């Protein structure tokens, strides 16, 4: 009886504390939400994939959206914002092309947008781990 009580007290309670922290941290820094939950392997793979996709997009002279004038541009901007600090720092450093000049730049633009969308999926996964919805 006493052993069971000690065991249940030692196990982390899924709903304890601020449950949205892994979601927010994971959105700001790719993989950090999983690192926060001590899922080192998953976090490292997610970080490498998302960061790799984002950097390759920039290397392909992909465009970083800063404003939106039509619905498709708005969706692309929303995707870019999914990268969190990667997007903010890249914008601050003036990285990314202002307009698409070559074919590879078009692919690079998609890489950057999809990296942001994948980061949102990873952040939501970290939140699900935190709430206990996923093991």
């Amino acid at each position, binding site marked *: 009886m006493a052993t069971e009580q000690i065991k249940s007290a030692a196990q982390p309670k899924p709903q304890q504390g601020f449950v949205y922290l892994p979601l927010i941290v994971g959105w700001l820094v790719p993989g950090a939400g999983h690192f926060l939950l001590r899922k080192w392997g998953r976090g490292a793979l*997610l970080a490498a994939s998302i960061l790799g*996709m984002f950097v390759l997009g920039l*290397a392909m002279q992909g465009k970083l959206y800063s404003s939106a004038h039509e619905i498709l541009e708005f969706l692309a901007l929303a995707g870019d914002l999914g990268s969190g600090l990667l997007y903010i720092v890249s914008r601050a450093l003036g990285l990314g092309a202002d307009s698409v000049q070559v074919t590879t730049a078009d692919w690079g633009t*998609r890489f950057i947008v*999809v990296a942001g969308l994948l980061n949102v999926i990873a952040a939501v996964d970290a939140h699900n781990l935190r709430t206990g919805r996923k*093991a």
Partner: protein
Amino acid sequence: MSLHPSHFTAVLLFALFASVVFGITQRETPHRMFRYGLYCFAMFVGSAIVLSWLMYFIAR
């Protein structure tokens, strides 16, 4: 740094990164994550090849 990969290389890179994230986030155990990631990679690359051939024949 400027990178100009071929279209197929870009497809492979895209499929690799997206499959890793899909595998980890959509399944619970490492074994199932690996299998689902492999499945996603095959579907990404396979569908790109099939659609490319379809467009090739449509254009003729």
